[in-house]
Structures are given as structure tokens and as C-alpha cells.
């Protein structure tokens, strides 16, 4: 079995009966300390498969070098190709001939490992939020989040829906918001330009924020995702 199988199997796996867990837990205590996560929602077998290290904030490099790095980062923003809501429909004009963000050094990237920008397109349902958290945690830092559409900001017209979250910044750190329903592609480009400015100024430290306030974010996520059956932090 490969990694992704285990992950997806684990999404459907039932939690282990409580009695076996208490029996074996003592054997595992030796490797738990304040730097590891409990992964308590997983079965014991699954706890062996997944990494239980906590994300750590990473210090920026020495001044001028970090400035140079930030310049490179801001001129090579790779967007994760994950259309999470209606906003994804404007992603296509953005990457194609009319608005063509590739001239700004951006391109869509099919795998989270290689992407650096997560574009949240609009409303986020609970089922998608789970995947967003997974994808976001799999991205390698520094990573940035641009939340497009009003629904990602305050729930928008789905404020009374039982299945959408109302503000995305309680679940993952957001760098730039773009309002509108739909925001025009120009507005999204303006959002990306703002993100570039933030990166150049060294202010887009969402990854470190996530690592520092990890417990708060995790508690928020677990509050709405009722069937949390994945590791606490997805490397």
C-alpha cells in the first residue's frame, strides 16, 4: 500500500474501540513529549504510519539574503490548482490568454508540494475545508493564502447555510482578501499584486503564524469538522 492509500483509507476508517487503546497506550508514552502531536483520532496502527511532529516556526534568513529571497518568491508565485468554490471559475480566465497571470511569473501547479499560493475561491463547505487543511499543510513554506470572494470573508449570501464556514481565517491564516461576488479577474490580480508587496516587505508570514497558533487553529478546525479522522498535522 502506498501513502495516499493509507491516507484515504484512514478517511473512512472507524476509530478503534476504546478499551484496546487504553491497553496499548502506555507502550507509546515514551515517545510523546510537548513537541509531538497526539493524533488521538487515529487508530494505533495509523498512529505508527503518520508523522506526529508539530510544525515549527522557521526564522527568516539574514536580512539582505531574505530580501533577495522574498523578491524571488514574489516573482514566482505558483498557485495550487484547487478550485474550492465558485471563485475557481475566474481562475481559468486568469491563467489563459485574456488575463494571463503567467506574465507576472505565476502559474497553476497541480500538486501542493510545489505550490506556494493557495487561492481559496469562495464559500468553503465542511467537506472541502477538510481537504483545504490537508492541502494547505502539505504545501511547503513559505506559503501564502489569498481568499477570493465574499463568502470566504464572512459567509456572504450563505451566512445561514448549515454546511459552509463563515470565515476562513479562523482555520488557516490568510494574507490577502479579495471581496466581491464574483470579483473580476482584475480584482484578483490586484489581490496578487498586494500579496507581492506584502512578501517583498516580509509581512506575509502566514506559515509561521500557523505554526505559532497551531493549537488554536487546530481547535477551530476540529470544532467544525466533526469526523476528524486524519493526523493532526499532514506533512
Amino acid at each position, binding site marked *: 500500500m*502506498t*501513502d*495516499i*492509500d493509507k491516507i484515504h483509507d484512514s478517511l473512512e476508517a472507524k476509530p478503534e474501540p476504546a478499551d484496546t487503546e487504553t491497553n496499548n497506550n502506555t507502550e507509546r508514552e515514551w515517545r510523546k513529549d510537548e513537541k509531538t502531536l497526539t493524533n488521538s483520532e487515529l487508530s494505533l496502527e495509523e498512529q505508527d504510519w503518520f508523522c506526529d511532529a508539530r510544525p515549527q516556526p*522557521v526564522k527568516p534568513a539574514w536580512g539582505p539574503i531574505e530580501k*533577495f*529571497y522574498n523578491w*524571488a*518568491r514574489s*516573482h*514566482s508565485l505558483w498557485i495550487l*490548482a484547487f478550485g474550492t468554490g465558485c471563485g475557481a471559475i475566474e481562475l481559468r480566465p486568469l491563467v*489563459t*490568454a485574456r488575463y*494571463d497571470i*503567467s*506574465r507576472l*511569473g505565476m*502559474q*497553476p*501547479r*497541480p*500538486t501542493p*508540494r*510545489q505550490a*506556494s499560493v493557495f487561492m481559496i475561491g469562495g464559500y468553503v463547505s465542511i467537506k472541502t475545508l477538510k481537504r483545504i487543511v490537508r492541502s494547505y499543510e502539505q504545501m*511547503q*513554506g*513559505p506559503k501564502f493564502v489569498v481568499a477570493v470572494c465574499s463568502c470566504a470573508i464572512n459567509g456572504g449570501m450563505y451566512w445561514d447555510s448549515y454546511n459552509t464556514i463563515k470565515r476562513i481565517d479562523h482555520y488557516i491564516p490568510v494574507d490577502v482578501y479579495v471581496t466581491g461576488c464574483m470579483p473580476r479577474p482584475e480584482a484578483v490580480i490586484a489581490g496578487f499584486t498586494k500579496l507581492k508587496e506584502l512578501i517583498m516587505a516580509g509581512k506575509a508570514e502566514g*506559515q509561521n503564524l500557523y505554526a505559532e497558533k497551531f493549537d488554536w487553529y487546530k481547535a477551530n478546525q476540529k470544532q467544525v469538522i466533526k469526523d476528524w479522522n486524519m493526523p493532526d498535522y499532514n*506533512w
Partner: protein
Amino acid sequence: MSFATKLMLSFLSLGVITIWGLTLNGIVAKIFARVQGRLGPPFWQPFIDIIKNNAKRTTVSHGIMFYLGPVFRIAGGIGTYMFIPAVLGSVMFSNYSVSGDVFLVMYFIFFGQLGMALGAGEGGHPYSAIGVARGLAQMTAFEVPFALSVISLAVQYHTLNITEIVMAQQGSILNWTLFTNPLAVIAAMIAMLGMTMYNPFSVVIAPQETPIGPPTEYSASFLGLLATNRGIFNAAKLVLFMNLYFGGATNIISMLVKTFAIYMFSVFVGVAFPRFKTEDSIRFFLKVPALLGALAIVVWLI
């Protein structure tokens, strides 16, 4: 000339060819964009991407083989280049051409892919595994016409040394293999389409069919290494084709112009075609191109 000077000069030429290869990639992205009706990224975009990838703060490794995958890949790229004389007669660009280096170079072309396959396999992602399976299958297929074409050249020139093959083509444009052995050139150029992994043979790294093939799990500096290798490897392959089929180069300007022109062949095919499935592409390579290659050998044997 001492060994140390020679080594230093070789690495200098490697630096030049890396920059040229990456620039070529940038220009190609620009050409693609223009055909598709957009402006496209600036041609220096590959350099920024490499800097950015190396500037990533975190990365994920899945074990020692995963780590070594890109290293093997770039070793394959450098190895390919190091045994080809890029510019005939130049001290700096002559590299380590020895007798029989054609086969050494062909081995290195294969070597990088194999190392990458092992590394990507340890990543454990099914997309990587499928990409690796597709890549190796397709590579085995396009190696057939290419190898046949190279053997035809060996029969034609009675040598396996690239420098000697280039020497034999000097004098007039009519001495180029392109005109003396067109069948072999056609077979090899079709094989090159598979090698450069543009459409219609791009299913290995296709973003839609299964994203994104072997490098699915690679991030940060691993990806930077792979991107650097893409520059070196492409340029090295182009230099090899130039030497074998297009009369080589006697100065650096003609080298740059010829490699650019050869690259454009696969780019213009790539921009106008959808991509083949793996089975289709294997079937394609083993039909007409392989037959042409075999015919080229037969013609020269008779």
C-alpha cells in the same frame, strides 16, 4: 594542459550550457504563450523559479533514495554533457570526448531517468508510480529508433567517437548527416520529440492525465535541482543531436544557433498537438521511426 585546468574549463562550459539551457526553456515558454495568444512569462522566469525553489524554508523527504533521485538525475544531465564536445576545436567546450562516447552518452541519458524513477518510487505517491511506469515505458520505446539511428551512424562513419563523427561532417553543409543519411536523421528527430517530453509525448509529466508524474512529491530544493537539470539535460541532448546529425559547431555562436533551431522542431510539434497515451506512443515509436532506423542501417550496410 593540466588536468585541473581542463576540469575547471569543463565546469565553466557546464555553467554556460546550464544558463543557455534555462534560457532556452524560458524562450520556449514564451513561444508557447505567443502561439496560445498570450504574453507569457519573461524568458528569465526559469532562473527566478530556481532561486525561489531553493529559498523554500521547509521541505519533505521520504528517505535516502528519495533524496538521491534528483541527484542521480542531475548526474545524468552533467554526465551526458561532459562527454560531448560542444564546440569542435574549442579548448573550453571540447569536454571529455573519448572513443566510444556515443554509447556512454546514451547510457547517461538513460541513467538519469532510472535514478529519478527510484527516487520518485520512494515518494510513495501513486501518481509518481504511474508517472514512472509511463516514463520508463515510453523511454524504452523511443530509445529504439534513436539507438538504431546511432548504430546507422556508426556503420556510416566507422567510429563511435562523437568528435570523429563531427570531424567527418566538416567542410560543406552537404557533408552533414542530415544530407548523407536522412533516414537516420528522421528516426532520431522523432525520437527527440519523445526525449524532450513535449506534446504529443508528454503524458509522463502531464498535468491533467495524472499530475504531475514522477516529481509529484518533490518540493523546494529537490525541485530546484530538477529544474536546473532540465536546463542542462535539454541543452546537452540538443548539443548531442547537433553533433551527430547537423555537422556540429566550430564556434559558440553557431552552437547556440543550431541548438535553438533543433529545439524549435519539437516545440512547434508540441504546440500543435494533443498528447498520446503511453500505449499509443509506444506503438508509434515502434512502427515508422524504428523501421526508418533499421532501414538506415541496412542502406549503409549494403
